[in-house]
């Protein structure tokens, strides 16, 4: 489903952040993406989301070469990917409910058609009583779950999460991990970027380790 071939990435004229990255992920897989801070985890996720273009190499997403695609088609591919940002990136002027519903709204669906799904999902992630609250007043863990709900509301085929447990206590981290495993069981491929070994030890999933720009899958 995802294939990287000799992918290299540098920002501007800086050093190569990623070097000869080669891997292939199949549908329904579950991976951790790890490495020390500054190793390039976020950069790799941005490549997957097509928010960056590689300096060299090829990236195939869902069987298509991303480099050749015109902008509208890249947007359509993005709709098949859900992303949880490290800093959540919820919109402050929208309620939790509206934030979670945003992707469906962007896809052009009518509010009536998704209203129930959004409410159900929010209840499922334990935000049933925070639906009308604005992000400002949510706790770190609540924001995290709202961001995850927004990432999965469009039933993505691939879910990317950047340090999803960075801002929560170990107990909440566990619950969130279970949420990702559940989504994976329902058929979504998952990549979780984290440097939290405690979290990775909780489940027996392959690790993609980034070190000095090189990627190794263990």
């Amino acid at each position, binding site marked *: 489903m995802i294939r990287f071939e000799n992918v290299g990435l540098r920002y501007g004229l800086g050093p190569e952040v990623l070097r000869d990255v080669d891997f292939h992920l199949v549908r329904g897989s579950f991976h951790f993406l790890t490495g020390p801070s500054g190793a390039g985890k976020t950069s790799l996720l941005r490549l997957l*989301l*097509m*928010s960056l273009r590689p300096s060299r190499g090829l990236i195939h997403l869902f069987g298509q070469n991303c480099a050749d695609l015109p*902008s*509208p088609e*890249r*947007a*359509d591919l*993005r*709709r098949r*990917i859900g*992303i949880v*940002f490290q800093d959540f*990136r919820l*919109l*402050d*002027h*929208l*309620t939790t409910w*509206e934030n979670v*519903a*945003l*992707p469906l*709204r*962007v*896809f052009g669906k009518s*509010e009536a058609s998704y*209203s129930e799904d959004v409410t159900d999902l929010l209840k499922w992630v334990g935000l049933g009583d925070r639906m009308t609250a604005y992000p400002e007043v949510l706790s770190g863990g609540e924001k995290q779950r709202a961001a995850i709900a*927004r990432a999965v509301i*469009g039933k993505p085929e691939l879910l990317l999460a950047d340090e999803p447990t960075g801002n929560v206590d170990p107990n909440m981290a566990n619950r969130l991990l279970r949420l990702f495993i559940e989504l994976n069981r329902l058929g979504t491929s998952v990549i979780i970027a984290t440097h939290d070994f405690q979290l990775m030890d909780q489940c027996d999933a392959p690790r993609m380790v980034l070190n000095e720009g090189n990627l190794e899958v263990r």
Partner: protein
Amino acid sequence: MKEILKFDNIKAYWAETVTASPWVAVIRSLVRREARAMSAPIVQPASVAGRALTVVIAIMCFLACLTAGAVYIVNQSANDWFADIASEVTVQVIPVEAAEFEKKVTLVSLFLAKQAGIVKVSPLSAEESGELLKPWLGNSDALSALPVPRLIAVEIDRASPPDMSVVRRALESNFRDVTLDDHRRWQSELRTVTRSMALGGFAVLILVGAATVASIVSATKSAMASNREIIEVLHFVGARERFIAHEFEKHFLNIGVRAGLVGALGASVMFLLLPVVMRVLSGGGLAAAEFRQLVGSAVLDWQGYLLFGAVVVVVASLCMLTSRYGVYRILKSHD
């Protein structure tokens, strides 16, 4: 060929290009309250930068309308003035043989009335001609003793004016000591004044226009900067560029039209009050008449108000296009 003309295709074209235009959306929202969706608009309706933009647009639109209106009025009254002067010529009959003088004036008048393109011929009586000289000669008996030239005011048809040189030649070949003054020198001077007034007005208009463009573009840009987060998030959840641009165009066009209308309305009130203010300032009577002669009626006609509409359209479009440009600029760094 048949395919293209199908009604469904036309309907689809209409739906895609016309009703999808942000102008349609904004005009619709002005005319009637849209059935509001439950959700808040995607673009934040009232940010601090947005309010600052509203104020800037309203003020600049007000100033631009004031300038445009003033230049329009000045041009208009200069044109009226010019037309009045141009539609009159004067014929002067010099008294040489005193006995035949009255008869000669009548003959010249009749001759002029026969010429094509002349609407009205009014010879001034001896008393009226004397009146004109009074300011120079004083109220003395000397006046009646002097051979005062007689003036004939000739009003020409503005729609089809006669060729003045032909009329002059005809006059000179038929009568002696008769001169025609078509105010040419006065006209050409007036034309220069009118032209420089118009040029000055346009120069001011261009300056105000440039200031309006610059301040609206920069205020829109700073309002867009505060929307960067929204643009990026929309992009990451899979919104197409066109969708994002359209959302912002709608939002900024809305601000532009509403704030622009406020500014234009303010300027309209000023112009509606202007004749009243002028009457109060000039204190009525003779002074008022002179004042009016100087600046024209100071009344803006409907075409002048149409000009305000054009200012609002330009200002709102500017706002919309700048936001659109801002969206694409931000998206370029992410795709």
